[in-house]
């Protein structure tokens, strides 16, 4: 039997379960204590099966140890354990990248002044400008052209606050739908909003056009209001909570996400997810802030243990609700063990800079929304296409197999090496992952995999929602 590489498996325990992951195949197994102990010994004994057994003869019967050996070796034979990883030479990014999604910065202005806004309270370091219909239409033309033979394309209206430029949003949706029909393509629109300007007209438009909507709300009133005030400093919770609740109710809980950001000011963020769930939302996402470490709301290394505990608190709450038939989706706990993305997708990650680009109100192209306004990352313009192809190549080559700290991380094919912008901001390189982000990612994934395994193990005789 070939030498076993323990970087190709990951095992962890959570509550009553011991879970073993074969990283390269994506297989997941539940193991008992004997198997757990045996694998520990096998690693210590550098893959010597007989020696590992001999170390455990005082603790377990020979017959049990033989059974474990037989089962583990059976999994290896069936390529479900210790499956060799692919080589970095096995994957080459496409020499002809296909753009399939655009983030349109339809408004570089905002009616809130969120403390953590990476866009500098909505202006992205520039003037508070709005995208014109003309630039928006040329951006959609660029997308259809750059998507080549790909059928599905996506446009996300982003800001700032996109509803400050709702008239242009409406025109562009009509234009995009018309062009998609002519070209026999499918275009999907998403709008990300803080909810302040939601009203009947907006709702009717978004519903009629089957648009996905991402609605921002941070959780408890005091938490939300501390970081998401209006221009005059007053809190936004009371206004947006009711508007967002009404919007979701009218939508019959379909095609939306309520999303928030948590910071060092609310390390007990599980309480905010619980608050959102108890308000009645069923599609929830709450994300750790990414911030300059000198800022008072940025996480510090010493926060990590507490933050990880919070994910455990949330896991237990999620499970209690699930078994009562009152489940909800917490975005980071969504994981489909059997039907997840293919390996090329897991390697290429978000596709920023080649599959996914952002467009400034003036029509300039950037690798993603986080880079808008940074001149060194300007890639071209919607009228002239991608001119700076080097940026695109740099992003394509910043895949997980090229990141030294990722290649031995068990989460490499779930996380894809993290966010390029975060990596650059913290590590100074697209290839250097952001440590706190990695730690939280791994914890979230263990929670998510644990929950999926629990769901698999119980009889599914009740309604999830």
């Amino acid at each position, binding site marked *: 039997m070939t030498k076993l590489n323990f970087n190709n498996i990951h095992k962890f325990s959570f509550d009553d379960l011991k879970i*073993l992951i074969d990283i*390269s*195949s*994506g*297989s*997941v*197994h*539940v*193991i008992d204590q004997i*198997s757990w102990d045996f694998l520990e010994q096998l690693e210590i004994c550098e893959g010597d099966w007989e020696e590992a057994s001999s170390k455990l003869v005082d603790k377990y019967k020979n017959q049990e140890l033989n*059974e*474990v050996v*037989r*089962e*583990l070796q*059976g999994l290896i034979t*069936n*390529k*479900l354990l210790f499956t060799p990883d*692919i080589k970095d030479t*096995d*994957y080459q990014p496409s020499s002809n990248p*296909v753009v*399939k*999604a655009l983030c349109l910065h339809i408004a570089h202005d905002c009616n809130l002044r969120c403390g953590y806004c990476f866009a500098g309270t909505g202006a992205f370091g520039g003037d508070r400008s709005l995208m014109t219909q003309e630039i928006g239409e040329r951006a959609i033309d660029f997308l259809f052209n750059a998507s080549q033979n*790909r*059928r*599905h394309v996506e446009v*996300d209206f982003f800001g700032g606050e996109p509803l400050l430029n709702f008239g242009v949003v409406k025109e562009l949706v009509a234009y995009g739908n018309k062009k998609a029909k002519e070209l026999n393509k499918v275009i999907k629109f998403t709008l990300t909003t803080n909810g302040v300007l939601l009203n009947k007209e907006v709702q009717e438009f978004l519903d009629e056009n089957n648009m996905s909507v*991402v609605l921002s709300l941070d959780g408890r009133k005091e938490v939300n209001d501390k970081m998401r005030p209006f221009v005059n400093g007053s809190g936004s919770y009371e206004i947006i909570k009711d508007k967002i609740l009404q919007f979701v109710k009218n939508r019959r809980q379909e095609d939306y996400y309520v*999303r928030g950001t948590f910071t060092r000011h609310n390390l007990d963020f599980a309480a905010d997810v619980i608050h959102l769930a108890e308000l009645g939302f069923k599609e929830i*996402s709450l*994300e*750790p802030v*990414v911030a300059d470490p000198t800022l008072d709301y940025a996480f510090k290394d010493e926060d990590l243990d507490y933050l990880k505990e919070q994910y455990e608190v949330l896991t237990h709450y999620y499970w209690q609700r699930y078994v009562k038939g009152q489940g909800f989706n917490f*975005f*980071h706990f969504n994981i489909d*063990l059997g*039907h*997840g*993305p*293919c*390996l*090329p*997708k*897991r390697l290429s990650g*978000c*596709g920023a800079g080649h*599959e*996914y680009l952002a467009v400034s109100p003036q029509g300039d192209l950037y690798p*993603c*929304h*986080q880079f808008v306004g940074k001149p060194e990352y300007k890639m071209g313009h919607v009228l002239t296409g991608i001119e700076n192809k080097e940026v695109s190549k740099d992003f394509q080559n910043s895949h997980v197999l090229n990141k030294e700290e990722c290649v031995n991380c068990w*989460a490499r*094919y779930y*996380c*894809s090496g993290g*966010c390029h912008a*975060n990596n650059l901001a913290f590590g100074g390189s697209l290839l250097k992952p952001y440590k706190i982000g990695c730690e939280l990612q791994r914890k979230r994934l263990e929670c*998510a995999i644990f929950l999926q395994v629990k769901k698999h193990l119980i009889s599914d005789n009740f309604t999830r929602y």
Partner: protein
Amino acid sequence: MEKQLHIRTINSQKLQKTLKTGGCGECQTSCQSACKTSCTVGNQVCKNN
């Protein structure tokens, strides 16, 4: 495989095979940052699978 007494396999995925069979690119774009609903790749579903 023979009956397993100590190990229960939840899914028998062969992810490495999709290096050749996958990559159609028709799936939804994912975002790894905190400012969007960061659709971490692992949270996605393949519609062709």
